[in-house]
């Protein structure tokens, strides 16, 4: 066991970590946008849109993320849409994360009892006021744990982007391994870096959650 030869590649490791974080944040942002739009559509009155959203959720939740990345990267070019590796992975991961977010956000919205909304309406609040002051805060609090754990799974899932040669952390690992032949050390370090990122996010989310959602107990 000798980790010293890997020290030369620290810049690549840092670059790879940054790309991994970029990919995670981009996919999370677009995924949450999809999630919000999808949850609203699911609660809407238009039947065909509801079916469409349900179909999207089932399709993306019941097929492997790896195959989705392959389809975006290898299949879309035959329709004239050729995306570079990073963009293709970002699109596929956003769609994957979006499918999970819809359900999470929908169940967050559903967790608020209907009587509370009616109580707000009785007090003469407008639709927006009911949404922002009554529906949104408890819905966010209820959806928060699921969103954050899904975010950590997304962070780990970005490693699949290495399979279409996006230069994220796992791809860097393959590069360093091919130069040094030190598979054990390389993958031990890579796993440690992912673990450090996952733990940091978990701690960060726990702290943010404790600060942002302490309101029901204070009074």
């Amino acid at each position: 066991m000798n980790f010293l030869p890997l020290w030369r590649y620290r810049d690549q490791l840092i670059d790879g970590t940054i790309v991994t974080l970029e990919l995670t944040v981009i996919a999370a942002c677009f995924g949450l946008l999809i999630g919000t739009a999808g949850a609203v559509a699911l609660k809407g009155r238009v039947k065909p849109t509801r079916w469409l959203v349900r179909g999207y959720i089932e399709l993306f939740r019941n097929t492997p993320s790896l195959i989705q990345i392959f389809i975006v990267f290898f299949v879309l070019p035959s329709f004239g849409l050729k995306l570079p590796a990073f963009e293709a992975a970002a699109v596929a991961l956003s769609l994957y994360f979006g499918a999970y977010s819809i359900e999470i956000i929908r169940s967050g919205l559903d967790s608020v009892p209907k009587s509370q909304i009616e109580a707000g309406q009785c007090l003469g609040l407008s639709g927006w006021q009911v949404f922002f002051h009554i529906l949104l805060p408890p819905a966010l609090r209820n959806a928060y744990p699921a969103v954050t754990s899904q975010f950590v799974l997304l962070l780990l899932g970005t490693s699949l982007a290495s399979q279409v040669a996006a230069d994220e952390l796992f791809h860097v690992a393959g590069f360093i391994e091919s130069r040094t032949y030190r598979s054990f050390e390389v993958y031990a370090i890579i796993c440690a870096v992912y673990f450090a990122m996952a733990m940091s996010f978990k701690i960060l989310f726990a702290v943010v959650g404790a600060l942002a959602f302490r309101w029901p107990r204070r009074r």
Partner: protein
Amino acid sequence: MRSFTFIDFVSLLSALRWTVVLVVLALGFGAPLGLGLATGRISRLAPLRWISAAAIQVIQGVPLLGLLFFFYFGMPVFLGIQVPALVAVTVAYTLYTAAFLGDIWRGGLEAVKQAQWEAGACLGLSRWQQFRHIVGPQALRLSLPPTVGFLVQLVKGTSLASIIGFVELARAGQVVSAATFQPLLTYAVVAAIYFATCLPLTLWSRSLEARLDGSR
């Protein structure tokens, strides 16, 4: 170059058996280990609790792909022995399954009220008997839906074994795609086979959830 024929479809479908083999191996070794981790988490011995909690955190904090590469490429170099692909893959999936099932089952065990243990103790049952006859069955009921839900994750996760060259469904897809130059059709078929495998599990998990929740 040749076209995508019925033979290709059959070869994809038959590659599904390796996916099933991986799932069975992962569950066969991972479930007992997961049960160990879950009971470790609620043990009265603090070190046992810490060790199981740390094991779950570490494995859940590392990508499945990282586990696979570590055990397939890393471990043989470290140990200086040849490890067959199936063994390396089985170790990685076993740990992955154990960590996630351990966490799910711990949740189930903790959801059973403490008074149930105490009631068992009052009847003179040993700690093991309390677990076996009182808390365990209730926890099993509670954790069945998420366990089936995890099964879907596991089936999808076996697609990663393709990356280290293990010929299961996803790998067979790559082979057929390369031979026929028809990625669209091939990957659509591969995705459809995964979908047809996972959707029943998803629906089962959902119906269990609805049923068990309603009876509470």
